[in-house]
């Protein structure tokens, strides 16, 4: 058991190559010994030469150049990125040639595969010895040449928006198999515009496919995954905080295996957890930023630090992150937002944003006189939760569904919206329905204020809601009224698709003001904040 985990760790550690052969070889070679970067690059170059000789009919120079392009950014990427995070231009014919090879592999047993690989690597090692002397000169000059050729950095599409690409799916399946994370299968007919996204059913959580006791995945992560997939924990802040607490538990229970460094090994331990969680429910932008932060902190642990000390440092880091970025940020945001709430205001809110609810409760405590209109929409009906919280405080509320928006808007003086993420081009990604509210508010000249902490700012750019979104369980749209459930057998109707979108993006022209913990900024200044934050780090 430990051996297979060790092997996995080695293999994850050392390369993100699409070819299993490569990392298995390097993994077997470097048992306990870390290869230097140059050695790794050299090995890769040599393997490419090898492949090139094998596949002469596929136009070798073009392939090699593209392979080099793909591999040179690869060493700079963290080793934990999946092989599926590859550029689309990486030739499909290369992967197509491998996929028949890969397809037959699952048929053989693991031990047989390992024996095969060992035999292969022995033969390659022999040929490599001959090539090494001659190859050394050329390969050392090659890494210098390729960065100059690389003008635009090859962009990698994340695997969760490539569901209709069978190549990407196969890569994802291979990666999950390697990490021993169960693969969740899609459910139901998908609307063609969104066929590139996953659509899961809540009745089949991935936790059903894991045996108890779980070997690779920590139990608190399993619990967290179940909570995500069933919708028990929902909302950007809640999910991030739960994630960080689960990671604290993981770090607490972690013990460094011999001959390994905590800073490297822990990061590698986290990647199957992250894959598992993204199978349960796609990661949010805030969770992504939190994970990046943790990984950075872990890799910054000095190697001479004792394990207990390191664990303590990490726990403190996580606590301070939660405290600064979430709790204190919401205090700062409430302070700014309360300036914008004047007596006699009629404030419109949509859905349930923890931040907006906090702001309204604080403003009410500071004796501002206002009333709130809560807008809600199916199927989540999150507005009811917001309504409950506000009424409990004693705030006067009205409740409408989103279809009554243009009826109620002439009464409204301000609109407060929460955000799931703020993109680098100023677009606001939030619960589906938000952009509709912003649009109608603009038409009625009502100011729209978005409240968002800075840890939700992400470097992505998106101009529409199609390219990257989340599809929720389509069965949620089925409703029983007067004893009749109309859409019960929607799967039998071949041309019927149920679409349950979760997010949408609002253009910055509809948003008047963004309130962050750094102050009040216009929507177009998000890249400035990102720049300032990067400088700080």
């Amino acid at each position, binding site marked *: 058991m430990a051996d297979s985990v060790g092997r996995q760790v080695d293999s994850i550690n050392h390369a993100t190559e699409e070819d299993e052969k490569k990392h298995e070889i390097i993994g077997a070679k470097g048992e306990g010994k870390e290869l230097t970067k140059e050695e790794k690059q050299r090995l890769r170059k040599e393997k490419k030469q090898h492949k090139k000789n094998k596949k002469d009919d596929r136009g070798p120079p073009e392939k090699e150049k593209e392979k080099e392009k793909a591999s040179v950014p690869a060493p700079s990427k963290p080793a934990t990125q999946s092989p599926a995070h590859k550029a689309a231009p990486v030739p499909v014919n290369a992967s197509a040639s491998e996929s028949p090879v890969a397809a037959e592999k699952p048929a053989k047993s693991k031990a047989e595969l390992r024996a095969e690989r060992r035999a292969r690597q022995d033969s390659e090692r022999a040929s490599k010895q001959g090539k090494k002397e001659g190859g050394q000169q050329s390969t050392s000059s090659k890494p210098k040449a390729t960065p100059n050729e690389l003008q635009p950095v090859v962009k990698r599409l994340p695997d969760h928006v490539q569901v209709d690409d069978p190549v990407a799916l196969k890569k994802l399946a291979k990666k999950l198999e390697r990490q021993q994370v169960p693969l969740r299968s899609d459910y139901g007919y998908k609307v063609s515009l969104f066929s590139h996204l996953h659509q899961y059913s809540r009745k089949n959580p991935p936790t059903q496919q894991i045996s108890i006791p779980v070997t690779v995945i920590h139990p608190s992560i399993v619990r967290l995954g179940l909570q995500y997939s069933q919708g028990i924990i929902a909302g950007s802040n809640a999910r991030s905080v739960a994630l960080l607490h689960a990671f604290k538990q993981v770090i607490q229970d972690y013990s460094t295996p011999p001959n390994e460094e905590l800073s490297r090994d822990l990061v590698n331990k986290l990647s199957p957890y992250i894959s598992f969680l993204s199978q349960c429910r796609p990661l949010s932008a805030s969770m992504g930023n939190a994970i990046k932060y943790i990984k950075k902190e872990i890799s910054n642990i000095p190697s001479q630090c004792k394990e207990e000390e390191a664990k303590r440092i990490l726990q403190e880091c996580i606590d301070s992150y939660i405290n600064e970025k979430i709790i204190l940020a919401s205090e700062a945001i409430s302070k700014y937002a309360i300036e914008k709430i004047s007596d006699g205001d009629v404030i419109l809110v949509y859905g349930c944003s923890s931040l907006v609810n906090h702001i309204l409760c604080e403003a009410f405590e500071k004796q501002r006189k206002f009333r709130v209109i809560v807008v809600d929409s199916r199927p989540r009906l999150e507005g009811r939760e917001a309504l409950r919280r506000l009424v409990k405080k004693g705030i006067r509320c009205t409740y409408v569904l989103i279809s009554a928006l243009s009826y109620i808007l002439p009464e409204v003086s301000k609109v407060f919206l929460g955000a799931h993420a703020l993109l680098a081009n100023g677009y606001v990604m939030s619960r589906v329905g938000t952009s509709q509210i912003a649009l109608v508010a603009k038409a009625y000249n009502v*100011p729209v*204020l978005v409240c968002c902490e800075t840890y939700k700012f992400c470097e992505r750019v998106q101009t529409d809601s199609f390219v990257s979104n989340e599809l929720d369980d389509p069965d949620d749209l089925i409703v029983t009224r007067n004893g009749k459930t109309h859409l019960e057998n929607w799967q039998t109707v071949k041309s019927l698709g149920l679409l349950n979108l979760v997010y949408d993006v609002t253009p910055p*022209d509809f948003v008047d*003001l963004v309130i962050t913990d750094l102050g*009040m900024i*216009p929507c*177009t*200044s998000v890249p*400035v904040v990102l720049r300032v934050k990067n400088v700080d780090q």
Partner: protein
Amino acid sequence: SIRGDPDVASAVAAIRSLLEFLRRDQSETILGLRENMTQAIRRLEETDSSVAVSSGGELFLRFISLTSLEHPDLSQCKNVMIERGELFLKKISLSRGKVGKLCHTFIKDGAKILTHSSSRVVLKVLENAAADNKRFTVYVTESQPDSAGKRMAQKLRKLNIPVMVVLDAAVGYIMEKVDLVIVGAEGVVESGGVINKIGTYQMAVCSKAHNKPFYVVAESFKFVRLYPLNQQDVPDRFKYTADILKTVKDLNQEHPMIDYTPPSLITLLFTDLGVLTPSAVSDELIKLYL
């Protein structure tokens, strides 16, 4: 002294007096000094409630304290602050010239320019353009209730620039004749919008409807940390003059002296920091204030 010199912006005069106050201040600690300065700024705001005085004062305070004040001796610290204060004053006295130089290239030969009320910065821009041997006509709105437009027209006539005074109500009528609109600003807010004499918003809306470029010229000390969402959101202390604020009980009966023009109606802003789009103003403000 604030109304004394007609050529100096009230904010510059305010800063000059703040510097003098700093020189004469008797406090023993830096904290005490800052408190006295803030009080002085507040007193100045009470006398002349323009946005520029408030923003200029705050920027002055920030600028002089944005240096290492780790000297053990208070008088040394004070000297450092006074030096920085003088540097600040010198910079802003030159700012109007810089703006003029930047903007006059946008005025083409034969252009018809519309401007609002009396702004010294716009005057400087037009002066520079005239000195460049460009021929242009200027339409100035009367700008009631203080008829500031008529004073502007007089100053322009002295520069031999053909000028015509129009009624405030005639802005829509005249808009089709003009090529561009240039106005000054009392304050530039975080969103990239401007606060200026009442009637500017109207002019901006008309120019947008006619697709004419709407340019704003302002010095950088006018950048203020406000973010109004609409006309109502501008604080009362800027809308009315200081004497009215002190004497009148019900402000609803009074006419405000300024209005807010949102950034969506502004084409470009000319400042001594360069030519900016409204969205770049926020970047500059972050740099100035943070």
